[in-house]
């Protein structure tokens, strides 16, 4: 491309001529389909800019955790969050997949995760002469009960590394689960859709022994007039 044209394309005249700025500059028509992120990924868009897309693709192609480690994580995930009558388990919510990704994305998880899994196998071997995944459920729970309660650190100093590992495992399992569709539903999260906020439900106010002060309410939006264009008098009193 000639320099003259570059100057021309840096100059963005219309919205249509400019999708993502960092892709501007190679074509004068501004469409840039070759470098548009939509052609790079065909999954759900989550608002990544080109260098972030590149980073995500690189991370997804990498392998960190091996098969044995992932199998162990899957067992731990369902001990931490087994299915209930109303909700699926951590494996149902694909939490191991999340953990597989996040340890690559946030490398500070890697060593404690890998080392912690090895600690767990070592402890299993010491007690039962088998790796953790090959223990019976009762045997697994016997170990987990020794590392699931941080306040036990003083009484069981030999378990402290295991307790740290299980804290991390629990944290990542909960995050992976409650950020999934299944977890959001289990939690009862209600939001992230267009709505009109008109205050705390009356029964909730009563339950918590709080109420709206009428003087305060008078300053609040009358949602029946939200689509009327605002007009004021000269003193700033809203007229509409």
């Amino acid at each position, binding site marked *: 491309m000639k*320099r003259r044209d570059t100057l021309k394309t840096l100059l963005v005249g219309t919205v249509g001529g400019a999708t993502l700025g960092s892709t501007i500059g190679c074509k004068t028509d501004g469409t840039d389909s070759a470098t548009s992120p939509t052609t790079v990924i065909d999954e759900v868009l989550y608002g990544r800019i080109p260098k972030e897309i590149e980073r995500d693709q690189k991370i997804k192609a990498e392998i960190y955790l091996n098969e044995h480690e992932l199998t162990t994580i899957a067992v731990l995930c369902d001990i931490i969050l087994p299915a209930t009558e109303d*909700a699926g388990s951590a494996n149902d919510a694909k939490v191991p997949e999340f953990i597989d990704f996040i340890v690559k994305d946030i490398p500070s998880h890697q060593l404690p995760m890998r080392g912690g899994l090895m600690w767990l196998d070592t402890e299993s071997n010491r007690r039962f002469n088998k790796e953790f995944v090959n223990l019976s459920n009762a045997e697994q729970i016997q170990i987990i009960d020794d590392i699931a309660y941080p306040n036990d650190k003083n009484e069981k100093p030999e378990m402290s590394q295991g307790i740290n590992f299980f804290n991390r495992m629990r944290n990542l399992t909960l995050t992976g689960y409650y950020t999934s569709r299944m977890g959001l539903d289990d939690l009862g999260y209600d*939001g*992230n859709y267009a*709505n009109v906020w008109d205050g705390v439900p009356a029964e909730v106010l009563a339950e918590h022994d709080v109420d709206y002060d009428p003087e305060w309410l008078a300053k*609040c939006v009358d949602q029946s007039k939200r689509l009327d264009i605002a007009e004021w008098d000269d003193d700033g009193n809203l007229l509409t």
Partner: protein
Amino acid sequence: MQIKETAKEYDAIIVGSGAGGGMATKILSEAGLKVALIEAGPYFDPKDPVTMTQMKWPYDSPRRGASVTRAFGEYDMSWGDWKVDGEPYTQKEGTDFMWWRSRMLGGRTNHWGRISLRFGPDDFKRRDIDGLGDNWPISYDDIKPYYDKLDKMVGVFGSKENRRNDPDGFFLPAPKPRLHELYYIKGAKKAGVDVIPSRLSILTKKLNNDRGVCFYCSQCNRSCKEYADFSSSSVFVIPAVNGGGQVDLYVNSMVRSVTTNDEGKATGVSFINKEDRKEYQLKGRSVVLGASACSSARILLNSKSKQHPNGLGNSTDNVGRYLHDSTGAGRSYFIPDLMNRKTYNEDGVGGLHVYSPWWLDNKKLNFPRGYHIEVWGGMGMPSYGFGFGATEMNKYVQGQVGGYGDKLRKDVKQFYGAMIGMAGRGESIAMRDNRCTIDPNVVDQFGIPVLQFNYKWQDYERYQAKHMIETFDEIGHAMGAIPLGEKPGKDKDWGLLKPGQIIHEVGTTRMGNDPKNSVTNKYSQLHDCDNVFVVDAGPFTSQADKNCTWTIMALSMRTSEYIVEQYKKKNI
């Protein structure tokens, strides 16, 4: 290297498309001036589905919103944060200033908190009150008409409160408080702390036919596809670029310096095109800097010439000095009464529905300037980090910390939405030695010399942070809340955050009547060069305990109208 020049001469070249530059673009182009707007980052429109993060679910991303590539989480709409690839800055030994930059059309206004507070009459004359810093060369009465116009032009919700130093404006109606905010109101009142509806630039009611109305997703930091909150991109720049043909927009263009002629007058700017990494020049009859306080100071300091050997506007060594950020300290609490909540949609607007403006008289306190309190909490949408330490709060309610299985599930649910946080944002004192200068040894990837920061807090700010923390605990106690974590003590400056962390940096090209101790005059025009103006937060003489954006825009409007006037009088 051959520098590419354009033959065209603009009436005004505006550098930076954020709050200040966006406003200048609107006013100057609507007045008929031919404008070039130069932005260092790429094009951005909040409604572009490719880059949009609004209404995304955590599971839309494999990292569930974690802050790996964006400091405030991957859905936050700021391209760039305290670190920008290839654009370093340095520190004087023993200091640590954090410098946020958003490289995109609209700059930081795409993700800001929308807290829109007018400065009050006292805020322009603080030296008269406590003898520290300097008075502004203007008063509240000078800027009031611009605040009034701004309220109607851009929109801000709030309430009439008749507080002398927190002036009312033309407000849209406020949203009703959420449950945790009702607890805060109760606690604050018991503790003797004033609390009123917050004032945010979000449209709770229709303002005009160009923009939508808030639909309560609570995600203003992701930028609004309905244009129902203020972003300079959606509200100022995109309409200006699309209408009238007065504006040429240059994106991905990093301004290095302002060019000047033999008389010392500005002739335009020199910039690096990030795509081909070549240098270009644009000619303009005036230059309007809105690159952010520190970026504009950097451009001026890098604009050395025979006529301006210390950098443009720097004949008296004031450019880069008096840099100051808001103070900040915060604390989180657990409210046992909020356990086992009934869940319902309480997303609300993006940010707080209530806040506490400064309520005390500093003459009776051991620190000179005030602060306001912001409140957060509620049943927000989970993202990466949700559930970390989920069982910790058991220790306050005779429960067992740790565990797994059904017990764990129950813990997560019973503590969901039972947290509340308070954060203080206060005024610091502008110190002559808190400054940015050009680092003689370091350049960025475009070969442009970078900034070196030197910034230290004083006891003025430390004692203010101490007061914040103690007040939060009083309010917390009054609402039946239990503080989480250790109370920060003297060894931690009572939790005072680092300078730059609140992202309200101002003062680097401060305005004043005396050129010996200021860079710009009361119209934000350089004393040393009358066709160069600064419309970001650089001209702030002092910060106030209010967020700076509303005042940046009011001042930019005032300066822009002044430029139009000068242009009509043929002075430019």
